[in-house]
């Protein structure tokens, strides 16, 4: 009786709500247009382009050496991996063979970047759910990685350390010691993360069963990286197309099949363990040798199209270059993992509460400069 009265007399109507572009939970300038019925999400529309900087067009007026530094500004949390993608592309096109020292240093740096990105994600994830402490704890560990980067590369975020044909500098004399110290330190801290957040009842209830996407849908939407691996899709580029020193190491691809937010969370925690294991396997194996292969002052790619894929902290980062034989590329295209992952947001969050949207957005791990370019 009472319910009938409510539905007859107090009719609710659907309304629209803007989330962003200046919203702390959207991790950047992302505008979401929410169609709501009370607190329930009916539709999520995305409005992109607030920080579009036309980086792909800028690449067409830059030489190949100059393009490398622009990729720092895409996904700034995995800038080292983005740099490597361009370097590998040009090296592949020109048949430049780099030695094992360069390959191994690049791989160690990649994994440190991945840990740094995931630690930041872990902190922000907790903060989005309402656990402010994790943000501080995440940044505490990230600071140590930033120190390693600053000492060897000269910068903390936009490292710009990879060059075409090698590295900008040799590793710093303290590098090996610092990395070993960090690995030992972080191995003690990761179980603490589990105790603090993974086991927490409030956190679990906010994530388990929320934001489900099936394996078929994940493939159909073109999801990649940890977001897809949470749905059981095997898509690790480090395994499928090994580059740099990934064929020398033994590691496990983190896959969970539940497909919900909690599975995506577990994937990233497991990836941090795997990254630590990769660093441990390589850090004592850095061989002697040159850190840079001499390249021509003006690099010209042969005419044709070239593709390179790498696994960034967010997924499959692809670089495509179409060259007409000049010193500038005719077309330079980046395939960013965040853009594909964001498209599935509507599918994941339909029918859920508005507070769940924040959690889902967090488990997708969006970095908006990567999406907008």
């Amino acid at each position, binding site marked *: 009786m009472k319910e009938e009265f409510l539905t007859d007399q107090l009719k609710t109507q659907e309304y629209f709500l803007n989330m962003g572009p200046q919203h702390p939970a959207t991790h950047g300038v992302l505008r979401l247009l929410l169609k709501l019925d009370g607190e329930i999400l009916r539709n999520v529309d995305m409005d992109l382009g607030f920080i579009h900087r036309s980086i792909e067009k800028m690449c067409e007026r*830059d030489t190949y050496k100059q393009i490398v530094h622009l990729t720092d500004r895409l996904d700034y949390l995995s800038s080292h991996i983005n740099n490597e993608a361009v370097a590998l592309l040009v090296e592949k096109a020109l048949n430049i063979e780099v030695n094992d020292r360069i390959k191994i240093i690049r791989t160690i740096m990649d994994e440190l970047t991945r840990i740094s990105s995931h630690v930041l994600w872990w902190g922000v994830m907790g903060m989005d759910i309402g656990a402010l402490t994790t943000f501080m704890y995440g940044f505490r560990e990230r600071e140590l990685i930033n120190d390693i980067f600053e000492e060897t590369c000269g910068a903390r975020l*936009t490292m*710009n350390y990879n060059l075409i044909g090698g590295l900008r500098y040799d590793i710093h004399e303290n590098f090996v010691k610092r990395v070993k110290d960090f690995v030992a330190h972080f191995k003690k801290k990761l179980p603490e993360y589990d105790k603090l957040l993974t086991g927490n009842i409030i956190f679990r209830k906010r994530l388990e069963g929320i934001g489900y996407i099936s394996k078929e849908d994940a493939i159909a939407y073109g999801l990649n990286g940890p977001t897809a691996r949470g749905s059981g899709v095997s898509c690790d580029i480090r395994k499928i197309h090994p580059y740099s020193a990934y064929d020398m190491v033994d590691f496990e691809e983190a896959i969970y099949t539940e497909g919900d937010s909690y599975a995506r969370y577990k994937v990233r925690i497991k990836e941090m363990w795997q990254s630590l294991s990769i660093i441990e396997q390589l850090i004592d194996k850095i061989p002697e040798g040159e850190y840079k292969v001499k390249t021509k002052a003006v690099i010209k790619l042969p005419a044709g199209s070239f593709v390179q894929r790498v696994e960034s902290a967010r997924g499959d980062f692809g670089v495509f270059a179409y060259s007409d034989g000049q010193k500038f590329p005719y077309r330079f295209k980046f395939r960013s993992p965040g853009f594909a992952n964001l498209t599935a947001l509507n599918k994941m969050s339909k029918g859920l509460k508005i507070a769940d949207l924040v959690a889902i957005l967090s488990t997708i791990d969006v970095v908006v400069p990567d999406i907008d370019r």
Partner: protein
Amino acid sequence: MSYFSEIINGTKTLLTGMRITGKYFFVNLFTRRDVITQQYPDNIDTLEMFDRFKGEITLFHNENNEHKCDACTLCEKACPNGSLEVLGDKAKDPETGKNKRFLVKHIYHLEMCTMCGLCIEACPQDALEWGQDFHHVEYDRSKLTKVLNKPGSKIIPGLKG
């Protein structure tokens, strides 16, 4: 039954987390063992950056106010953003009697620089190097345009141009 056991288990997980935060709170309250933050504006006199830190581009000068730049403009060409402008002029070299380029002004637009380091790499004379200063905050954008060569400076004699 499961309702109550869930309450008990839930409280247990909360206490597990509280133990960690509590441990860090009390340990760092008395010993500051895990504190990694720096009291930045207070330690400004003792703050030392890493020697590779990319703060700004500088032109190396020796103690006689001499630099290594012969105004070849390779750095200007290597720069992706047009942050560098090299103004040079030609004058007769008294020793050889040939026309030789010399540097008038090495203009550096810090506001456009992305610290990519391509200019430093391109320089055949190793004239440019990184500076560790990062206090670049100004109220006016035009103050970030700097002249790198010091007034009255000359190229190091004997350096081939």
